[in-house]
C-alpha cells in the first residue's frame, strides 16, 4: 500500500498498515440465550407497534359507529361499534 499524506508532509501511513486486515477480524458471537431473549422482546415490540399504529383509527371508527347507532337507533351500527372497540384488545 502506498503511503499517503493526509494533512502535512510529515504525516504518512506506514506501508502495509493494518487497515486492510480489519475486515478479517472475526465476528464476536453473542451469548445465544441472550440473543434469543432480545429477539423475543423486540419481536413483541413489533406487534405492539402495529397495534399502536392501528389503534387511533379504530378508536375513531368505533366512536363514529357509536354516534351513528345512537342517531339512528340502529342495533347493527351498535354491534359494529362494539366489535371495532373489542378489536383493540385482540
Amino acid at each position, binding site marked *: 500500500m502506498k503511503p499517503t499524506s493526509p494533512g502535512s508532509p510529515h504525516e504518512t501511513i506506514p506501508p502495509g498498515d493494518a*487497515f486492510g*486486515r480489519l475486515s*478479517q*477480524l472475526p*465476528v464476536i458471537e*453473542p451469548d445465544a440465550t441472550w*440473543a434469543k431473549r432480545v*429477539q423475543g422482546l423486540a419481536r413483541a415490540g413489533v406487534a405492539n*407497534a402495529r397495534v399502536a399504529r392501528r389503534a387511533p383509527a379504530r378508536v375513531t371508527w368505533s366512536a363514529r359507529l357509536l354516534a351513528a347507532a345512537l342517531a339512528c337507533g340502529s342495533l347493527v351500527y351498535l354491534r359494529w361499534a362494539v366489535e371495532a372497540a373489542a378489536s383493540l384488545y385482540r
Partner: protein
Amino acid sequence: MGAPSHQRDSDDQAERAAFARLRTGDPTGFDELYARHHRNLYSFLVRLSGRVSLAQDLCQETWMAFAVKAGGLDPQTHVRAWLLTVARHAYVDQWRRHHRFGDEAGAEDVADFATSALSASPEHGVFLSEVERALFALPLADRELLLLVGVEGLRQDHVAAMLNLEPATVRQRLTRARMRLANLLAPEPHDKGERR
C-alpha cells in the same frame, strides 16, 4: 472483496423484502433482519465500547427502537447503516453521560475477545488480537471510523451521513485514524535495534 455481485443483489432483494414485511408489522420480517444483522451489530458495539455488558444493553436498546420505529421508516432505508447509526448514538450518549466509562474499565473484556480472535483464526490470530487491542487503545472518534469503514465495510458516504460530516472530512479523519492504528502496531524502536 466479499460476495459476488449477483449474490449481493439477491441478498439486497431478500433484505428489502424482509424490511417491507416488517414495515407492515409482520414479525417474520423482523426475524430475518435480526438473523442477518444481530451478530455484526453486537460485534460493533463490543468493539466500540470494550464492554460486553454495555454492548448487550445498547444492542437491546437498538433492536427495540428498530422494532418500534420500522413501520414509519422510509422503504429505501439502509437497515444496517440505520442500526449502526442508532447503536453509535446510544453509545455516544452513554459515554457523554458517564465519563467514568474509561478505557481501563473495558480492558478485561477487550483482552477476552482479542483472545477469541486468536482461536477463531489461528493463522493470523496473533496479529488480529494485536489489532483488537490497538483499536481499543485509539480515541473513540478514530475507533468508530475504523470500525464502520474497515470492519463493517460501510461506504464512506454512508459513514459521512451517519456522522453528519462532509465526505472529505471523513476521508481525512480516516487517513489519520489508519495512521494512528499503524503507529500503535509498529514495532518498538528497540525491536529494530535487536534485528540489526
